[in-house]
């Protein structure tokens, strides 16, 4: 049985191909303005890695912001369900999932069967998103991927109070103007985003083990800051960026198996 999950987010599109319960191919591509094209591009890349033709896929599930526009998906699922499903597969002990996505952050609480008990999105106007990190990285002229390493070199604790992305950018510029170290600013940024995500999770109740899902989890500084904000250690999963797509592929698999069983 071969299934695929396609997660078209606001910044990147991801595809995971599952063949008989193992990841056969994966891809991450940067989104253009057309979700269709991004989806196709990501799918082609993943198929290429898996050495498969699209006809071989038994079922594909789409998710993410652009889910309704994925041309080859047979079904669509919410990101909430996909992230929960993906995490459960990789870390069965997980009960709380935090995903800091491009446009929004989500906290999900689930039971042992992977059923979503409660979830919440970031509050309106909040800055705890991946987009926030991106804007600031740009303002600081630091590549997004390097934020984590940079924060590790921080020596002084700074506080960022602005919740608005744009005004936080101004706040950061004034910190730069004051001659603050970039490492300290980045560290403060991570903690600011982490604190917002932690409040979000606390609102629905945090149950361990906690897993951070989504691309931002690859940022070591962010990962550590979230643990600190929650006051517990996070369970690490491999390749968190493709977790949503993986969840979608798993849900596709579940559906086929359910159909067989039924």
């Amino acid at each position: 049985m071969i299934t695929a999950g396609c997660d078209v987010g606001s910044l990147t599109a991801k595809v995971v191909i599952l063949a008989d319960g193992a990841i056969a191919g994966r891809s991450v591509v940067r989104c253009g303005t057309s979700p269709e094209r991004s989806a196709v591009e990501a799918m082609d890349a993943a198929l290429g890695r898996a050495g498969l033709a699209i006809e071989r896929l038994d079922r594909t599930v789409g998710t993410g912001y652009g889910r309704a526009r994925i041309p080859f998906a047979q079904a669509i699922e919410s990101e909430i369900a996909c992230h929960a499903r993906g995490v459960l597969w990789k870390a069965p002990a997980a009960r709380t999932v935090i995903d800091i996505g491009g446009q929004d952050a989500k906290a999900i609480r689930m039971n042992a069967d992977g059923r979503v008990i409660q979830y919440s999105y970031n509050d309106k106007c909040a800055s705890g998103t991946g987009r926030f990190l991106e804007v600031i990285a740009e303002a600081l002229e630091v590549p997004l991927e390097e934020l984590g390493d940079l924060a590790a070199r921080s020596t002084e604790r700074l506080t960022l109070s602005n919740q608005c992305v744009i005004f936080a950018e101004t706040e950061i510029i004034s910190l730069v103007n004051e001659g603050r170290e970039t490492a300290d600013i980045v560290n403060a940024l991570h903690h600011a985003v982490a604190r917002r995500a932690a409040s979000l999770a606390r609102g629905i109740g945090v149950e361990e083990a906690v897993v951070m899902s989504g691309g931002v989890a690859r940022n070591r500084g962010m990962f550590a800051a979230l643990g600190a904000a929650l006051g517990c250690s996070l369970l690490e999963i491999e390749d968190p960026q493709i977790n949503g797509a993986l969840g979608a592929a798993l849900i596709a698999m579940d559906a086929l198996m359910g159909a067989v069983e039924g």
Partner: protein
Amino acid sequence: MIVGGCDVGSLTSKAVLMSEGKVLGFSLIKSRTKPEESAEEAMNGACTAAGIDRGEVRFCVGTGYGRDRIGFVDATVSEIACHGKGARWMVPSARTVIDIGGQDCKAIKLDAAGAVVKFVTNDKCASGTGRFLEVMARLLGLGLDELGELSMRAKNPVTLANACTVWAQADVIQFLNDGVPIEDIAAGINNAMAGRMAVLVNNLGVENDVCMTGGVAKNRGVLAAIETILGLRLRAIRRCDPQLAGALGAALIAHEKAAGGVK
């Protein structure tokens, strides 16, 4: 007598050199992380453009976020006064100035003599800033000027969440995904921006003539939308790039200060 104005903003930095009421040269650069470096680069650029030596500048006024970090200026003045002054030079009949900068926007009311009578700035939310348009344009894969051009062709502009830039983005993505024509989204973006500006201007109490400065003044869509909402025509700026208003005003104030003796 050659005087200079240097406007170090968070996104762009500008320098203008003037002599006897004429612009000798200017430069407009993307700001660097350190304002002193931005100022140096901008001023050197302006000198090169004017073909003069830095030493020839008799008096220089600094303005913008980084104004206190510019080493070479003789005095600093707030952006509000500089934009008012600069706009006045561009449009001598101006009584209301709308300036949309990268990180904030302002509406300034001038008296007959050109002094600032009152001003309002947007400190509530960044959705009424130039940065908002920039983020949106990139999301649509457009240049800032294209955003303006395209929006003029809209048939059914969308209504956009104007409360927050991030959330407006989420809406834009949703619209893109729903297959809404890009010009309708572009128009929605410009309308949201114009709507926020209009509230600011009306709160100040609009008085003719009205002109608009700052980078966004180059966006035809926003201009048109503001004109529609305010129900008046904006005076066109032709004498120089509207984005230079702050630096220009600083240079004009430098001239006054130098002529009147340093206060």
